[in-house]
């Protein structure tokens, strides 16, 4: 391998620390996170690993397993919050010679390391969750897709899968169920869009990574045309816990409409940290887990959801951290990233950075994606330079609405959020009259 070849790059070394959380908060995802060696199968089994798989196969069977997940109310952690059991039922309801189960561990947001932290600290939770999903939908092949740059994740998963196979939790005739579950790691790299499920499946098929129109959803027609369940790794890691402790115990945690916990990465002026947070916790309480602002600084805004997140004002601190409440406020759960923005930040510049990133990562397949996001980025750039045109307010509004209405995939829709939420809550900061005078020599962007 030559120097500079991407495949030979060193692993993404940064590991973000876990934050201390109140003792009353349940530890569903990070219960085994403090294990000395996360890839030690015996130690993990002593801590309950693969109890869920055993119970799903021996006591419940496929249909009752799906019913148990349904009554737990588990929603997908990949961003959209779609009920996990419904996706599984769709895949089962379709006659097909084969089905596939895929764990989405790509972690598209480069500033958010939640999925990667889970994968490194408890690979068996994902292996077991995916095995249960595969068993429940009758898939004999399952893949865990992760970032190729994260060589430590790839190695941990390869070890975990190897050990689980040797112990009979994976492979032919799993735990005497008569069903095969062959699992493998699939390292992918080279595009932000790989996080989107249809793009991820394209990459697994060796194709150009552009999204497909949905419906048909992957659960109906996915990998190689077969029904495919794609779930986020946090969704899957909650599955064994639910089977082991019962759906009612899970439904009692978090928010009634979206039970359970999610991993959140706080990014504050003082540093970063990851915490497992019950859904429904008010934003203010989540932020309080991290470092307080530097002396003399005040909270200006909170960016919730990653590069395509929404900017919320300090008044929104009591918004519960749930899929529905965040969408209503103009943000989204997204990658689980929460960025604390203090009063030093130029919000227009921040929106510019986010919109430009979303635009440059758009795949180019559809017009809202290829041209719409580009025009939006140009519009924000004009504002940054204090050169907004009188028509830009209306143009921006129309453009964002058109992108949302005509988008092919969710990326374009969400890419409008930084701008629309900024205009919604911080209109005065976006007013050109309040912007610094443009330098005389600067050419218009």
């Amino acid at each position, binding site marked *: *391998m030559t*120097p*500079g*070849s*991407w*495949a*030979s*790059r*060193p*692993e*993404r*070394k*940064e*590991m*973000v*620390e876990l*934050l201390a959380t109140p003792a009353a908060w349940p530890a569903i995802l990070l219960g085994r996170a403090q294990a000395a060696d996360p890839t030690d199968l015996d130690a993990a089994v002593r801590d309950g690993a693969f109890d869920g798989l055993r119970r799903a196969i021996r006591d419940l069977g496929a249909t009752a397993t799906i019913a148990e997940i349904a009554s737990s109310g588990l929603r997908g952690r990949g961003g959209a919050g779609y009920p996990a059991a419904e996706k599984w039922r769709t895949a089962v309801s379709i006659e097909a010679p084969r089905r596939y189960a895929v764990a989405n561990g790509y972690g598209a947001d*480069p*500033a958010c390391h939640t999925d990667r932290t889970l994968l490194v600290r408890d690979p068996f939770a994902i292996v077991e969750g995916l095995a249960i999903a595969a068993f429940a939908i009758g898939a004999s092949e399952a893949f865990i897709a992760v970032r*190729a*740059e994260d060589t430590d994740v790839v190695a941990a998963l390869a070890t975990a899968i190897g050990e689980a196979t040797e112990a009979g939790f994976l492979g032919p005739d799993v735990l005497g169920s008569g069903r095969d579950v062959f699992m493998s790691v699939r390292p*992918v790299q*080279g*595009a*932000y869009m790989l996080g989107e499920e249809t793009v991820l499946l394209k*990459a697994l098929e*060796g*194709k*150009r*990574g*552009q999204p497909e129109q949905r419906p048909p959803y992957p659960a109906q027609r996915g990998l*190689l045309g077969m029904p495919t369940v794609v779930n986020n790794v946090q969704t899957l890691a909650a599955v064994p816990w639910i089977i082991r402790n019962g759906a009612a115990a899970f439904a009692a945690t978090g928010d009634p409409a979206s039970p359970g916990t999610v991993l959140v990465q*706080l*990014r*504050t*002026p*003082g*540093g*970063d*940290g990851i915490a497992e947070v019950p859904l429904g916790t008010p934003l203010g309480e989540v932020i309080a887990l991290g*470092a307080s602002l530097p002396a003399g600084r005040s909270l200006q805004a909170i960016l919730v959801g990653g*590069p395509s997140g929404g900017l919320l004002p300090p008044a929104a601190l009591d918004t519960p951290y749930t899929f529905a409440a965040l969408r209503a406020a103009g943000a989204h759960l997204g990658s689980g990233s929460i*960025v604390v*923005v*203090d009063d*030093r*930040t*130029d919000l227009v*510049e*921040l929106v510019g*950075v*986010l919109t*430009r*990133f979303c635009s*440059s*990562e758009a*795949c*180019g*397949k559809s017009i809202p994606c*290829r041209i719409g996001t580009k025009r939006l980025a140009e519009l924000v750039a004009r504002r940054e330079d204090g050169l907004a045109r009188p028509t830009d307010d209306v143009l921006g509004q129309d453009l964002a609405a058109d992108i949302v209405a005509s988008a092919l995939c969710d990326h374009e829709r969400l890419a409008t959020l930084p701008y629309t939420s900024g205009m919604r809550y911080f209109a005065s900061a976006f007013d050109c009259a309040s912007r610094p005078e443009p330098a005389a020599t600067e050419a218009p962007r």
Partner: protein
Amino acid sequence: MNDETFLMSLIPGLGIAKGMALTLHRFFEPKVTIKYPEVTSEIIPKSRGRLQLLYDEWGSLKCETCFQCAQACPIECIDMGGMDTRGRFHVHWGPPETYGERREESALRRSGRPVPDPAFVTFAAVDLSGLDAILESFDHDPAQMLLILEATQAAYGYLPVAALKRISEKTGAWYAMIYGTASFYSHLRFEPAQAVHQAAAVDVHRPSETSYLTALDAALGRDAGQLGQPARA
């Protein structure tokens, strides 16, 4: 032929009568003149009009050679041929057999380049025996294309055109399809690593991620590289 159509075919002159009926119908139809452009005629929703490659206001071609249109065209009437963005080699849509070569030539003529194109024929020769072993190990399976391309890049340092052609030939995947895949993922490249790439080799993010993280931290007033520090000061 079902029974009914068979019986109809026995009636002599029926076809002629049907044809004449249509002709007469059209003949006596009221004539319509649409006063375009004052009046615009109704266009069926799927009409895309005349296909044309457009430039944006900065003068760059809007087409980014994604081959979506060629892929979608049911009768393969859309063929795109041209130089890649760095002007180094040809891409075109079409099957890899000889017919493809002819289309390649016609594409060259249409894009106003000499035939044969010197830029097209003078690729550095590469020893393809290593590639054949790679293809063998992936069973020449086009569904493994990303892994094949990654292995090829690991062996050669980049994806030589000759190698892409060989992959196309051996897997049966169209050259343009392979090019479309290879040009999408930012870790795959078509030329030997440049100094920029080498400088970036210590970096673990894609270049666009690095610049995003740097810009994000700058906007937030944080020092770059603060990621990973505990939030509790």
